[in-house]
């Protein structure tokens, strides 16, 4: 294989795994809980900030990657118990409230930063040469991590007792609550878990993109499209949606200009939504 071809295949894998990693947390909060969480990007950002701080002050991004889901998870729990839970009956209100939370987080960071973006070194900076192409090992780590994470969360949600309880709560809270399960803490816990996953994603990708206030927000539109294509009310759909927009984007980006490629992907998303408004797996629930 020529180095160009190796790079091409690698780009497709790398770009789609990054989008899937970003979407995992959102698949839980927007996909399953159906909360239109406009601050999802800022949860990613908070994870990236945690990573940045650990990398700058402790000299070790690994600690940041471990801490980010904890910090952002606790923050998500706090957010759910103080604000988000008030809006379950009012989705439009949730849209505005979460947008406002995101705005405050984004601008607070901007106010604190003294540069427009801060570089963060990857914990593994080495490159590996495969078929004549130099590939960054950190991107390979992200590809593998994404696959493991998606499979294990899917397993927990679909095959374990806890997963059944979570899905039941989100499907029919009244029935679940008369069965003796605390739906209040189920909701809070699920939101916190979705937040933690976004925080983890933020710490993982910050070395690839540098830390800047719009880090999460810039990806928000694509993340939402992935969830919409995947369909609400489930976990797997949004991940498939992410793959479905990232892979053609990355493939056609190699042959034509990335600008046209991005437009084509959005056109594709619109046509897709026209014919399958319920998402990839519509009607299967």
């Amino acid at each position, binding site marked *: 294989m020529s*180095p160009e071809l190796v790079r*091409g295949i690698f780009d497709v894998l790398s770009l789609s795994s990054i989008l899937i990693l970003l979407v995992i947390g959102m698949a839980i909060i927007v996909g399953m809980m159906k909360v239109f969480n406009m601050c999802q990007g800022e949860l990613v950002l908070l994870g990236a900030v945690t990573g940045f701080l650990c990398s700058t002050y402790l000299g070790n991004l690994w600690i940041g990657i471990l801490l980010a889901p904890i910090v952002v998870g606790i923050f998500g729990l706090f957010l759910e118990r103080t604000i988000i839970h008030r809006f379950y009956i009012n989705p439009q209100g949730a849209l505005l409230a979460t947008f*406002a939370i995101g705005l405050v987080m984004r601008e607070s960071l*901007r106010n604190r930063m003294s*540069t427009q973006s801060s570089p963060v070194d990857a914990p593994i900076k080495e490159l590996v040469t495969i078929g004549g192409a130099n590939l960054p090992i950190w991107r390979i780590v992200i590809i593998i991590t994404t696959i493991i994470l998606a499979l294990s969360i899917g397993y927990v949600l679909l095959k374990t007792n806890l997963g059944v309880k979570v899905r039941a709560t989100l499907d029919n809270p009244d029935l679940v609550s008369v069965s003796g399960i605390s739906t209040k803490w189920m909701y809070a816990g699920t939101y916190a878990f979705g937040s933690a996953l976004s925080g983890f994603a933020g710490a993982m990708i910050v070395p690839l993109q540098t830390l800047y206030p719009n880090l999460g927000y810039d990806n928000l539109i694509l993340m939402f499209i992935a969830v919409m294509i995947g369909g609400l009310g489930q976990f797997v759909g949004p991940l498939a949606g992410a793959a479905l927009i990232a892979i053609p984007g*990355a493939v056609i980006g190699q042959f034509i200009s990335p600008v046209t490629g991005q437009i084509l992907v959005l056109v594709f998303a619109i046509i897709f939504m026209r014919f399958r408004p319920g998402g990839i797996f519509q009607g299967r629930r």
Partner: protein
Amino acid sequence: MNIFKEGRSRRKTALASAVAAVLVLAACSSGTDSAAPAADAGPVKVGVLTDMTGAFGIVGKSNEAVAKFTINEINENGGVLGRQLEMVLADSATDAAIATQVASRLVNQDKVAVVVGGVASFTRVAVRDVIAEKGNTLYIWPASYEGGECSANVWNTGSAPNQQVDPTVEYLLAQGKKTFFLAGSDYLYPRNILARVRQVVEAGGGSIVGEEYVPLDMTDPSNLVSKVLAANADVLFEVVVLPGTAPFIKGVVDGGYKGKIAGTLFDEGINPLIGAQAEGLIGMQDFYLSVTDPFTQSQVAKFNEQHPEAAGLFSATFNAPAWYRSIYLWKAAVEKANSFDTAAVNEAMDSISLEQSIGGAVSFEPGTKHLNLQMYLGESKADGSNVVLKSLGSIKPLECQS
């Protein structure tokens, strides 16, 4: 201006704008009583319009500090025509709609004598008619930009495309580099700059082996990196704006690219963000921290001392030297006209020059509304600092020639 994404902030923050617009309106209505026109002996108001919030908030921080610094310095030395200057700060919030509102407030309520400002070109386009045409007030645009701004009552004090591009390309051609790959973000500034690069390369006997643009909101330019590596040109001339710059250049360098990388946006403000891969980047600016001119050195030291909150934000890509000279150019024109009247000052501006300024002497090239600027060819070190490879002297702007 140029270093950041322009299009997306408008598209994606529509909702933010709506919210912010309400806040601005509220602020406007509460600020009306302070808008009495200045008496002849009172201070003269200078409108300082920049993005204190939103995507370019950091640039605004620098601009505000430089404006304060310059106005204080003028006031300490007796003001302009014996009158003190009063700075009126307006936050354009990285949003064209808000920029229009605050510009209108500066002109109609605060009755400023001049407005200096704007970070991105979309702000300039949004405010210039409000200020210069309808408001009949002088507007100074202090940014290196894509060129072509020739409106009445508007004066450009940053570099034009030819001033940055021509000497850079000529230097690279003289080094024996023949093939060029052009890469940029997809909006007006990179497209205009790269069109100029193409023109100069082809005129000088070089060839363009590829030209590619990435969307402004593409956070991961991996595809572009692969194309650059496949083309393997002698020179990569790039205008990929933040935050794409660092991932793009890191990707290209780590991918094993052996050629030279040149661009219009490399300086002490940007290079440290790229990391060690910044080593060897070629840029062209009207100022670097390493410019040895004693006036420049002492002024920047003074600035850092007086404005510790903005120390490290005095850089060419933040338009810092352009803001400084803008206010002094206006002062010189007012003194020459012996009046604050817009028409008189506007007429005087055409032939104004400054013997010393941060970055070196400047003068308006008559009839072009742009400056003859001292330009410097810089090369980045791994720590992000720049060495001046060559001081090119004063370069003429090729703009607004009818």
